[in-house]
């Protein structure tokens, strides 16, 4: 295990070392100490590494991650795991806005709550939030799945494309073109798998499913009020 102390070294040095692992793998296990809310920690990794960050992170932690498993033992700032391609990012605390924004793949687990715009413009990632999510979550979400074990704020799934959303608690309001849809067997199955992958103990039957009504996919004058 490689211990890297951000109290005495820079994020630049850390990221350079992590990126070099893509060319030549010398160490799989990394422990990052004293993150102190710094931005861009462990972003741009392209290797099967296991990185544990011992504390709170600033913006864009594990941004554009590929393959790595990154665990944040603390809270995460704006855009944790933004544009992730693959791998797993786990936040043991809460996450700020735009968690998992535009991400194409991988799994993001937030053990606390996530703030506004969780999963905004998501493009294939799976996001599991043990707590609640803020307003405009999954806004313009294109693909992937968002699971919320707590409640969802206003305008959930606004202008949604093909993301499937599962919520166990209350939904404050649905956004434009987002509707509740029936939970069929295939959905219970995929939700069960997702919860298991995220290591979250919850019964899929307690969730409701939301998705796009697909009414805004092509412009219609009658929908003018929604645009």
């Amino acid at each position, binding site marked *: 295990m490689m211990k890297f102390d951000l109290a005495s070294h820079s*994020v630049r040095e850390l990221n350079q070392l992590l990126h070099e692992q893509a060319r030549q793998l010398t160490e799989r296990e990394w422990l990052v100490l004293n993150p102190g809310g710094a931005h861009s920690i462990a*972003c*741009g990794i392209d290797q099967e590494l296991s990185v544990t960050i011992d504390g709170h992170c600033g913006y864009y932690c594990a941004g554009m991650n590929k393959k790595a498993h990154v665990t944040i033992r603390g809270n995460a700032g*704006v*855009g944790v795991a933004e544009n992730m391609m693959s791998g797993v990012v786990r936040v043991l605390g809460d996450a700020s806005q735009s968690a998992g924004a*535009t991400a194409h793949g991988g799994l993001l687990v937030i053990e606390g709550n996530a703030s506004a715009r969780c999963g905004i413009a998501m493009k294939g990632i799976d996001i599991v939030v043990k707590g609640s999510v803020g307003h405009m979550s999954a806004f313009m979400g294109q693909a992937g799945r968002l699971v919320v074990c707590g409640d969802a704020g206003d305008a959930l799934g606004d202008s949604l494309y*093909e993301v499937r959303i599962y919520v166990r608690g209350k939904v404050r309001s649905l956004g434009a073109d987002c509707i509740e849809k029936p939970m069929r067997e295939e959905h219970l199955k995929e939700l069960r798998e997702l919860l298991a992958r995220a290591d979250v103990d919850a019964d899929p039957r307690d969730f409701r499913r939301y998705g796009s009504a697909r009414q805004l*996919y*092509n*412009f219609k004058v009658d929908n003018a009020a929604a645009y």
Partner: protein
Amino acid sequence: MTRDVLPHLRESATFDRAVIHEIQRAAETGIYDIRGWGAKRRVPHFDDLLFLGASMSRYPLEGYREKCATNVVLGTRYAKKPIEISTPITIAGMSFGALSAQAKEALGRGASIVGTSTTTGDGGMTPEEREHSKILVYQYLPSRYGMNPDDLRKADAIEVVLGQGAKPGGGGMLLGQKITERVAKMRTLPVGVDQRSACRHPDWTGPDDLAIKIEELREITDWEKPIYVKIGATRTYYDVKLAVKAGADVVVLDGMQGGTAATQEVFIEHVGIPILAAIPQAVQALQEMNVHRNGVQLIVSGGIRTGADVAKALALGADAVAIGTAALIALGCNHPRWDAEYRKLGSAAGFYDDYHLGQDPAGISTQDPELAKRLDPVVGGRRIANYLRVLTMEAQIIARACGKSHLLNLEPEDLVALTVEAAAMARVPLAGTNWIPGES
């Protein structure tokens, strides 16, 4: 014209035929007009400026014997690997999706032949484009369609797009006809949807966040790539200052005449300011921050057509220009040979702007494989190269006449304005006077 035929008829200046037609169209369809191209109204432009050639007080350079250099280096502020282009004319960002793969490839080939850069667009990077572009700028847009770290690392520079001159404050638009399977896959969208992409970035708002975002992009790419920030010309003075403060290596400034693939007509014609008015504001901002021609480069676009336009933009303080519409025309857009087909679409050669419909007879703004085949990327590349060379030579002719051994040595002092408006906007004297409105 009407007067010649029927002298007693008087066309209203306020409600002319185009206006009447638009009211009728709106009443019939219930939807705003969408089109491509840029603003079509007349606005103060480079045509309203003239150069003062050398004579007694300055001496000119010999056309064939004395060198007038054209190379420019971009990204010298923070990037480990700045870009060197051999002519200060770059190809602007235009998406695969809006344009055919052949058109994108042709732009890359043409730019590479003359040693300049080309740019991706709101749809990600295609392998064809990367392969045929020696210097490729990768756009980082609000939609983030196809955005991925591999392409980011393959790029020679990264352009964070905040806005476009044709639609500052608006997001991208690509109508269903053009969302073919390949385009849909690259953008992770269902085939055939009317794509409305976001106008704001999903994970940052405001200049303080942008600084953090730029740092993340630098971290991911190990501080190698120049990072551009592209803005539509509006509150240019402030936006440029904020872009520099946020850490941009290069500011890309697009005026209201700038082209688009699909935007509401009302947006194209009524939002944003002409590039002529924006450049001096940008230069002032850069000068006040001590980075003009000293660390941060300025690329300007919006209605660049000739070497004279290029020379005027550089004289006002830009380091390079970008071309969109003119490059498409060089490829064959609006060529008279397609006139009969343009007419079938309700347009005519010289007027065609329905890029959004995807039925371009010239095979450029289309995803229809049959139409796209009409454009040979090798021939198209040669046409682009020819055109870029002409622009460069024209700019050199003017620069030599002004006694400059490098295009970047052109300066505002070489310029005068033909109109009071242009003098005020460009901050150069009205021809034959010492008068700069607002300054003296």
